[in-house]
């Protein structure tokens, strides 16, 4: 394409209709959450399900016992969480524990959506990609969630730590205590260094603060360059963005992996998987891509983004398709090795998730929503080019990965007492409404189209 195209100024306007819809989502979420809390409270020990649930809980207790027995047979000091130690601690009511769990799980999930916004931009700059010049403002808006997620996570950690994170209990590290746990003591440096095990988890908290701090710092730097480019059109901003992006990608490579160990894997303290960093990242990444695609498709439907045509939509669709398969690959790599090696410390993770409701049906729903459906629905070229199809598949992927995170976090905290009811659904709606409000409000604050992006002409001529 030799001809240069004129680019019209565009600005996103958060219409009162959209805003009130989001507030309705927020309100409905709060309402469902409150109903869910009351249902969980009145249910007491045994929530919603009643008799059937009791049976399952019994079954899960039996499974835990069997596992402990099998582990003991191997002459290992490792104890299964929740089997023995939990009884000695002051017990939090199950409904409160459910609130804590769902808060933590939703925050990790939505923090990922925010950080993937920045990651997407960084990848585009580092790869010097041209096609994406017209859509980069949407992930930029998603990145505004990072500081909110960071503050919520740090505050939340101090609220929920004893209920969600088994390793925060001091007596696990006390040799004189009956709860002394050799395996966790061995890992204590990763949480408590340089302080004494069982005290304040300095290393863990510092990591959390540093990660969010660095992510937010790079986000502000890249955002500043991107917006300054709109005003003076200097190509230097693009080079600066590329430099920041490259450094950020190196940092993110390490920090996303370690964040996955900290925020997700350390919940199942005894268990470990070398795939977990990749697994959490893959889930975040494909879900973030689905979110970007969904917002772009919706904006396009509403008449915005004239610089985006079906070729760009096709590329975004390919991203969602490809990384759904990538996620499946990672999922299978983790599952298959654990399944085949059949080592009790490792299999306990999947035993909990395969045999106890509601995790067992989520375990399979996970694969259907995140692999089978996107794979079959997005396989055809035409379906990736159709906005209507992407608006169906992207919410499926987002819901699927929300369930994926549910299954990563909840079984390790709640064991047999976990539930997926109005409480969890309401909390997810609250977070979704807040995330979308922050994203869309930020989107109104800068031009929707990067007029002076040096890649814009290439993007306009993009043809596949």
């Amino acid at each position, binding site marked *: 394409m*030799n001809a240069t195209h004129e680019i019209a100024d565009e600005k996103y306007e958060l219409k009162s209709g959209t805003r009130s819809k989001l507030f309705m989502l927020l309100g409905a979420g709060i309402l469902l959450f409150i109903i869910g809390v009351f249902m969980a409270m009145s249910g007491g020990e045994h929530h919603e399900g009643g008799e059937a649930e009791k049976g399952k809980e019994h079954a899960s207790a039996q499974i835990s016992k069997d596992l402990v027995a099998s582990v003991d047979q191997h002459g290992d000091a490792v104890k299964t969480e929740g089997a023995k130690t939990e009884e000695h601690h002051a017990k939090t009511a199950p409904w409160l524990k459910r609130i804590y769990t769902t808060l933590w799980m939703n925050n990790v999930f939505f923090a990922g959506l925010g950080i993937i916004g920045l990651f997407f931009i960084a990848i585009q700059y580092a790869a010097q990609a041209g096609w994406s010049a017209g859509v980069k403002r949407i992930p930029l808006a998603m990145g505004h969630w990072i500081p909110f997620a960071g503050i919520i996570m740090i505050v939340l950690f101090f609220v929920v730590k004893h209920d969600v994170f088994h390793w925060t209990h001091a007596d696990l590290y006390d040799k004189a205590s009956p709860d002394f746990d050799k395996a966790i003591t061995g890992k204590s440096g990763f949480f408590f260094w340089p302080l004494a095990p069982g005290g304040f988890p300095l290393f863990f908290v510092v990591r959390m603060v540093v990660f969010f701090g660095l992510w937010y710092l790079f986000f502000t730097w890249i955002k500043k360059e991107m917006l300054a480019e709109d005003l003076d059109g200097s190509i230097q901003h693009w080079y600066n963005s590329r430099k920041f992006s490259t450094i950020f990608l190196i940092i993110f490579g390490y920090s996303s992996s370690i964040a996955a160990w900290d925020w997700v894997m350390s919940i199942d303290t005894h268990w470990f998987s070398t795939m977990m960093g990749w697994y959490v990242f893959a889930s975040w990444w494909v879900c973030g891509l689905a979110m970007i695609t969904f917002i772009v498709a919706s904006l396009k439907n509403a008449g915005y983004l004239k610089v985006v045509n079906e070729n760009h939509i096709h590329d975004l669709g390919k991203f969602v398709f490809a990384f759904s398969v990538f996620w499946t690959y990672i999922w*299978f790599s983790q599952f*298959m090795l654990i399944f*085949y090696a*059949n080592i009790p410390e490792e299999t306990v993770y999947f035993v909990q998730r395969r045999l106890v409701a509601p995790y067992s049906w989520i375990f399979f729903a996970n694969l259907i929503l995140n692999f089978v459906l996107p794979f079959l629905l997005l*396989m*055809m*070229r035409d379906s990736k080019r159709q906005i209507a199809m992407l608006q169906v598949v992207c919410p499926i992927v987002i819901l699927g990965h929300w369930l994926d995170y549910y299954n990563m976090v909840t079984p390790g905290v709640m064991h047999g007492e976990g539930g997926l009811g109005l409480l969890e659904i309401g909390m997810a709606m609250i977070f979704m409404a807040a995330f979308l409000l922050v994203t869309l409000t930020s989107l109104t604050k800068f031009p929707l189209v990067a007029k002076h992006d040096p890649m814009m002409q290439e993007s306009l001529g993009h043809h596949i």
Partner: protein
Amino acid sequence: MTAAKENFLVGIFDDEDVLLEAVGNIRDKGVKIKEVYSPFPVHGLDEELGYTRSRLPIAAFLFGMTGTILALSTQIWMLGFDWPMIIGGKNNYSIPPFIPVTFEFTVLLSAFGMVITFLIVSDMKPYKWPRQYDIRSTDDKHVMAIDLGANKTSKEEIRAILKENGATEVNEKSF
């Protein structure tokens, strides 16, 4: 070579933008274009030539499905029924260990199937000598071949149409 010769008019174009316009104009005049050869991919040429999308992906999917079903059923039958063996304390037929083989076989069959289908559809059999309308299509010229036998328009008219649409040369070629 067969006795009945096929006669072609070959238009040579220097510029791909001229070529793109010419293809549209010539087809509008009712002249059928046999094929256009270019030294590099020209975006939009296949749309101008009126080519529909290839159905090769559908063939690939069907070959892939064949691979999936064949690999899974073979493994289940062999390890589950024909010669049951206990490996690693697992069931005789447990699906997870079969997945890598199934995946590889799916890829293998869809790749081989696609290549073979493509060769058959494009008539690229062994010992087939490619027709060279103009050797410069491998260097710096775009070459448009028009089959005179398939067109009702006379040779001189087509020559005139090619000339007025920006062909730098018009040659005759017979095979």
